[in-house]
């Protein structure tokens, strides 16, 4: 759920069976919480962040719109085991923010 409550943001790891330590690739699915319809045309930026350690990642992920509410997020490097936040800023007419969590061994 995004900060405003307008969007549902979920992820799927497409670089393997599950997110792993190292380089990952995700697909974000963004849907309207009101209608359940996928939301296209958003401008996204992402900062992977590990709250327990207070640090980020050495790389800036690249994001490309796929369509049908899906966004391909590549080069997500999660250097340490533990819980990471995929802090995602949504720009545009209705700015929003979401930070889905990812846990890796």
């Amino acid at each position, binding site marked *: 759920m995004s900060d405003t409550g307008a969007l549902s943001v979920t992820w799927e790891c497409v*670089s*393997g069976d599950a997110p*792993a*330590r*190292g*380089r*990952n690739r995700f697909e974000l699915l963004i849907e309207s919480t009101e209608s359940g319809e996928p939301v296209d045309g958003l401008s996204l930026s992402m*900062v992977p*962040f590990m*709250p*327990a*350690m*207070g*640090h*980020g*990642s*050495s*790389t*800036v992920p690249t994001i490309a719109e796929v369509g049908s509410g899906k966004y391909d997020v590549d080069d997500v*490097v999660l*250097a*340490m*085991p*533990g*819980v990471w*936040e995929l*802090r995602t800023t949504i720009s545009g007419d209705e700015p929003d923010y979401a930070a889905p969590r990812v*846990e890796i*061994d």
Partner: protein
Amino acid sequence: MGCTLAALLDADWASAQACCAGASAITPARLELHEQFLVGLQLRAAWMLGSYDANRDFRNLPSGAAQWDFEQDAFGSLRLLRRGQLGLLVPVLESWRKTSTTGSEFGGGLGDVNVNARYDFIYANELSYAPGVALLLGVTVPTGRAPEAAEQPLGSDATGIGAFQISAGLGLERSFGDFLVSGAGIFSKRTSREVRGVESELGAALSGMLGLAYTIREGTSAAIFGTYMYEGNASVEGREIPNTAREQLRLAAAASFSILDEWRIQGGPFVDPPANGFGRNQIASLGGSFTVIRSFL
């Protein structure tokens, strides 16, 4: 950066005043009573066993993953007052890391420099009715490379926490014949920092050390000791994040030998127990250290 606090603790303990040879096994860089100055080099190597999650459950490293961490600490201690001394620790860190998705990499560099001080209000056994009591102070400066500034994808060249850290605590010790019981409690706080537009601040940390040393003969001692660290929840953008507190228990043994009057060596193994309940949001390692010290009277 789990090792960072341990390094600071070591630095704090390293500056502790020796009351007898037994203390050298626990705190290698401590000036003994007759010493005015010392310099030393500590070498460490550690193999990552796995990690503890937020529920304190231990998880082995996944298949295909490995990590070796190395550290070389150059340090010195100088007696500025009869009961007070100042210490400096300059760490250099390297790491070799491997994962199934990213391959292997090696990196390193200068770590976070630590300046520490110790003032002994009461030396061990100076008073028959009280233990030795000392004030411990430390400042760690972010001279190392923060994780997000690393150039290697797995952060093997990350050598610092990216924030200042201040610490203050008390050291207590008391000898009973050839045995020395030593303890310390340290409060630490790191400054907030901004990471790619995200403001974060780690929680305050409390660390404790308890050790028992035995003087085998003059200049030769052995010790066992444990350290425990608790750090509260971190805050991000001013909001406390649940389940981000960290804990670490480290068990160690060490021996110290005087080679010549002014030279001594110290070393031993350490381990973060690889089982449930011994850590939280922290990696677990098995390793050893070796230290060479030259003192000046």
